[in-house]
């Protein structure tokens, strides 16, 4: 601890946080249209995500009649005890299912 001329203590202190280990990474390239594309639905099985996806499907089909969806039922909950394993499996599952994009919910 440093001292001021008047004798009052001055403290020189460090930062209490740790270094960020996750570097900033780019997002995936976006699609040019949803027509003819397959969109995966990912749900953590909380807060009426099933109803939200039903409404979204209808609106997206209205705008993009050829859009296809892979239901959340295909993947199971993304917020279960096996979350890490399930998320790690998604890229391979998407490849198999011909997925082009994903909608993930529900952050509450």
């Amino acid at each position, binding site marked *: 601890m440093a001292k001021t001329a008047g004798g009052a203590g001055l403290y020189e202190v460090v930062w*209490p946080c740790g270094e960020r280990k996750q570097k900033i990474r780019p997002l995936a390239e976006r699609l040019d249209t949803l027509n003819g594309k397959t969109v995966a639905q990912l749900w953590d099985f909380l807060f009426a995500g099933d109803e939200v996806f039903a409404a979204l499907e209808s*609106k997206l089909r209205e705008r993009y009649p050829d859009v296809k969806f892979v239901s959340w039922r295909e993947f199971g909950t993304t917020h279960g005890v096996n979350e*890490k394993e399930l998320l790690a499996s998604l890229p391979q599952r*998407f490849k198999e299912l011909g997925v082009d994009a994903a909608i993930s919910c529900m952050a*509450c």
Partner: protein
Amino acid sequence: MLRASEVCESAGYPTSSLVCEGFLGQAAATSVGLGMPNLPVATIVGHPGAQSSEELRDNVLRVTADQVIDNLLGQPAEKALPPEPGAREIVFRGTFEEVNAHFYEREWSDGLPIVPPTLEKIEAFLSFTDRDPDEILGVLLPESRAATVWTVAVNGVMAGCRPEYMPILVALIEAMADPIYGVEHSGNTPGSDTLIILNGPIIKELGFNYEQGVLRDGFMPNTSVGRFWRLALRNLAGFLPHKTDKGCFGNTFRVVLAENEDALAEIGWPPNSVDMGFAAGDNTVTISRMTGSAVLASVTGATPEQMLPYVADGVAKETGWEIVFTTGGLTFGTLRPTLVLTPILASTIARAGWGKDDVKRYLFEHARMPAWRAEAFSETWADFPIGSLKRQVNLGRLPPAFAESDDPNRMVPIVFEPDDFMVLVSGDPMRTNAHVFCHNGYLGFPVAKKIELPRTWAERVRKPE
């Protein structure tokens, strides 16, 4: 679920994350920790739990859908993060009051005065571990920050710990970083807080309270280590209220619960450390995230059969919506309710020849709830659908004990098996009370770590008489 979106984006799949209105700030902060600060989100107006199906549909069509389309078709602008200080860099120089104001304004403190983390004080803490100060104990979500031995010492200083608590603090952060515990869930809705259980000779060596008032502040080791835990969640993991910490009401931190190992030894019951897979006499920390707790006052009786009906009733009643961690609403079989018996209660039970396993078995058979109530938490009162207990039993996901008949009033277990109950002994030795903690399931699953002492421990820490 932004973590799912991050995985997809990393693999080359564009995403839109749906985020409720009250969680947009959390989403923005969490995205940074995931390394994608420009992760696009679409707003869910209000909260689905407080809307009719028609209202929810209307809001999704009116607001959310267009944002989803924008998110999948329009490339979000890149974002950069400001530079941050190095670990040993002096970030501020000032008086005690100025340091505290500086830390509070930057959300580095919990609102109570902190001990200024000077290099001198940090070195004193580091002298109580043989570990390299730069060793990374884990990378903690939501901010994906490295928790090092150094940053543990910094936050230990700030919390008001003494340097000799350092081995406990290191073990706690190793436990926090264990994926089984799931620190990333620490900011979720229930606002649960962690119970730290301490075992081993270190309890007496460092003067932890393990008797009357064990859960009360007022004892430096118990209190300051408890405070350290929450400072670590703030500064090492990045859980900040109104941002990444979205506990609806929250809790203050819990002080450390040290077991009464003398009382346990007298009645021949193993300490919690043994239940967690360590040897008796090992110094250990166990962490488990609790949604709440209650005292069972004046447990009366001279035999287990007389005492335990009240205890089982209390254990069962403390569990409410948390049953969904057992029955599949959120997970199957991850609920770990915890019972704390005072030494006199434990010894009275043991006098009848009962071990801890007998208590757990009794709780399994008697701490139950009606099937209709367990189903109500999933199907009607809250929104964690499972269909029915019987359906889950038929699918092989729940043990048969959950569907022994079709009677909605049948009593069903609150856990999968007796060992899911944790039984501890602590508190006022001569008082006939018990304390029950309700658990937060896999969102803070019990994890234990051995406390590594430095080579110089015996020379520097006086053995208790």
